[in-house]
């Protein structure tokens, strides 16, 4: 037990230092890359080593979809008075049930309508084999997806898999992959959605990667990420149980010292007045993997895995 505690202490202190340090941009260590290269061939086997990512993808697509949907402007400024949907100035829960249902239904219809007209541009950073990139490319509100990664093997797996679905391979090139670091993409290329799922814990300088991402957001655009809090629960569930006992994730996938607490991201945003003015952490949700069930949201975003939605407000 003692050794675990010292191990944890060491990890936490080095992790914290790393989060604030500066240096080379969004690099990833050769060991990390070798690890993902080795996983490339089985990436799309939904019952294989990446099953847990495939299952997580269900929940994160729900997260992305519902976050975007909830924050749509239902009555845009140029909307004529008679076309406006009613938005009560107080909670709809206070209204009688049938009226509430009618209002909610109308708002839902309007959301579907607005969403179906969107043509969003997406950048999936650390796309791996393209689990999320493909899902985004199939979404009706998305027009263009670029997946980037530093591992050529996983990108190869992504491209091969893309060819299997005519909707992705023949659809005017809606989905593209590129072997590049985010900072090497032109700054002039901006996006409506940037995703960094399960990748910040693998990079050496996560704040750099985040900065590069936030800078490429259109106003009103979203950055969605998922990673892991650096705490005992995380170590216990992801490394000890996940890798060594249950073997649901390949050994070597995680390094505790690279985990980032969700509060650290919030603090990092507030730290800088310029950042604070432009970006907002809209939502953070804790998530947990239950072997027989899959992923579900928890009530505490400070423990274990979490999803986060940031938005460029200005």
């Amino acid at each position, binding site marked *: 037990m003692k050794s675990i505690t010292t191990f944890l202490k060491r990890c936490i202190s080095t992790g914290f230092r790393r989060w604030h340090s500066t240096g080379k941009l969004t690099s990833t260590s050769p060991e990390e890359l070798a690890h993902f290269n080795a996983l490339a061939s089985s990436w799309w086997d939904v019952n294989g080593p990446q099953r847990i990512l495939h299952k997580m993808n269900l929940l994160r697509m729900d997260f992305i979809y519902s976050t975007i949907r909830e924050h749509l402007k239902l009555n845009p400024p140029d909307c004529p008075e008679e076309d406006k949907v009613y938005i009560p100035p107080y909670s709809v829960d206070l209204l009688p049930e049938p009226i509430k249902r009618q209002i909610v239904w109308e708002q839902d219809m309007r959301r579907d309508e607005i969403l179906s007209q969107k043509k969003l541009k997406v950048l999936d950073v650390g796309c791996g084999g393209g689990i999320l990139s493909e899902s985004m*490319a199939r979404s009706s509100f998305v027009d263009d997806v670029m997946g980037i990664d530093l591992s050529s093997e996983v990108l190869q797996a992504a491209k091969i898999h893309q060819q*299997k679905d005519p909707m992705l391979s023949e659809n005017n090139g809606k989905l593209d992959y590129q072997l590049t670091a985010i900072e090497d993409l032109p700054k002039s290329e901006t996006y409506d959605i940037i995703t960094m799922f399960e990748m910040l814990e693998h990079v050496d300088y996560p704040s750099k990667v985040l900065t590069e991402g936030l800078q490429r957001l259109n106003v009103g655009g979203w950055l969605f990420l998922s990673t892991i809090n650096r705490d005992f629960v995380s170590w216990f569930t992801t490394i000890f149980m996940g890798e060594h006992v249950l073997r649901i994730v390949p050994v070597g996938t995680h390094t505790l010292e690279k985990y980032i607490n969700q509060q650290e991201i919030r603090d990092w945003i507030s730290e800088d007045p310029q950042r604070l003015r432009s970006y907002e952490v809209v939502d953070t949700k804790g998530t947990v993997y239950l072997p027989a069930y899959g992923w579900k949201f928890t009530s505490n975003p400070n423990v274990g895995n979490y999803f986060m939605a940031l938005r460029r407000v200005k």
Partner: protein
Amino acid sequence: MSHRDILVPDCNNCLKLTLHTHVGGKRKNRIHLQDRKITTVRKIIAVRIIWCQLIPSMIPSPILNTLKRDVVIIGGGPAGLLLLAALKTSPYLRHLLCTLIEGGSLALAKQFGVDPPKEYTNRIISLTPATASYMDLGMGCWNHLHHDRLKRYNHIIAYDDDGKIGFDMDAYMVEVINVQLALLKRLAELENGFENVWDQCKVTEIEKNGGSGSDWPIVKLSNGKSVEARLLVGCDGFNSPVRHFARIQSRGWPYDRFGVVATIKVSKPTQVAYQKFLPTGPLAILPLEGDDATIVWSLTPELSETLCAAPSEVFPHLVNAAMKLDSHELPYIYEMVKNNDNVDNVIDEIQWRLNKASVFDKYYDNTVTKVFDKSRARFPLKMSHADTYVAPRIALVGDAAHTIHPLAGQGLNLGQADVQLLVGALEKASTRGLDIGSTLALEPYVSERWPANHVMLGVCDKFHKVFGVNWGPFNAMRGFGMNTLDSLGLAKNLIVNQV
């Protein structure tokens, strides 16, 4: 040459384009579609041709006849048509390219709307309120039913030699062909609903995709065409070719019983359904419009043959005898029928026995007066349940997934619930951007639906065993009267309340 040229459908132009793009050294053949609706098929053909030119060893044989579809539904029975209408109604799924393939002809169903045959067709099923409400509010096809041929009943009386129970149960009796008609009419209203129903077209073979690229199954049809399916749904009945292709085991309990169905006339119209439990199994009389009614009668194989072949003057009396006499009196009568005894003798014998026995009149207080002769049919009864309903790019729905004892009148209602949950799973999958043919998309369907169906199948199976098998302990239990049925209250509630 511009990209647009690829829209020209004939083969030569496509080949020209191929050569052109090849010579031009372009690696990616991007095709810009001007009009999605009409050109997708051509686009696919064109892409295949291009691809084949580049990799000649991979030419699939009937290139020009292979189409790609998001959903291919095999079977134009109620389950298949319901599924297609549900897909085309869903705001999240209506954009999918779907094709339904039916081996038989749907012309009769269409004709039924204009000019239904005077006599009832012999596949008559019951619909629960849940199914009715789904067809109405969920699908908007309830109004398209031929309402003169739709009967609502609200009470069931079930009894045997020793006792009876009655319970309220709302349901509709309707011909399968009427349901098909309503769905076909609904499909005609929906965009791209109707054109893609191909009837008189049989599935001759289903193949795995040999190419290294796609894993979509290829369905070969009797009209020479082939269709590749992102998701292949078997709504193809109890002997499902799709289930066989997917190598999904279906475990069954054959009952050594046959069901005999017939349309009859009774002396007075009623809103009540009757079910009598006989040693061979249940005999149900379900009301239709006016003084019409339909029966489902579970019998041993031998008896079913005898009774199906019995003269049509005798048959109504046989039904009355079975409904009203003590069951131990029946074998003697059946023996007479089997020995081709004189028709009048048989009728007299039955009449004589009915006159002295009045006790069952209080259970079945009606009289069968006539059978529509062409309506009599027999079929083997069995219960079966597939081990799973999904495999990569495969889903099973309706009788393809499960067949149930007709006793509970649940066959189609289970199929309706399957459709509702499958569509729910596909809607969810589509907002999650999943490939709707992947097991990730389909798993929620089987995990919700399979256990519910299994309970229902098990309950009906127990009913059959308790009331339909001539086996000592069960008979002894039945000796305690219909209390056994009441003690199966749980089972009753399940049947009444589920779906």
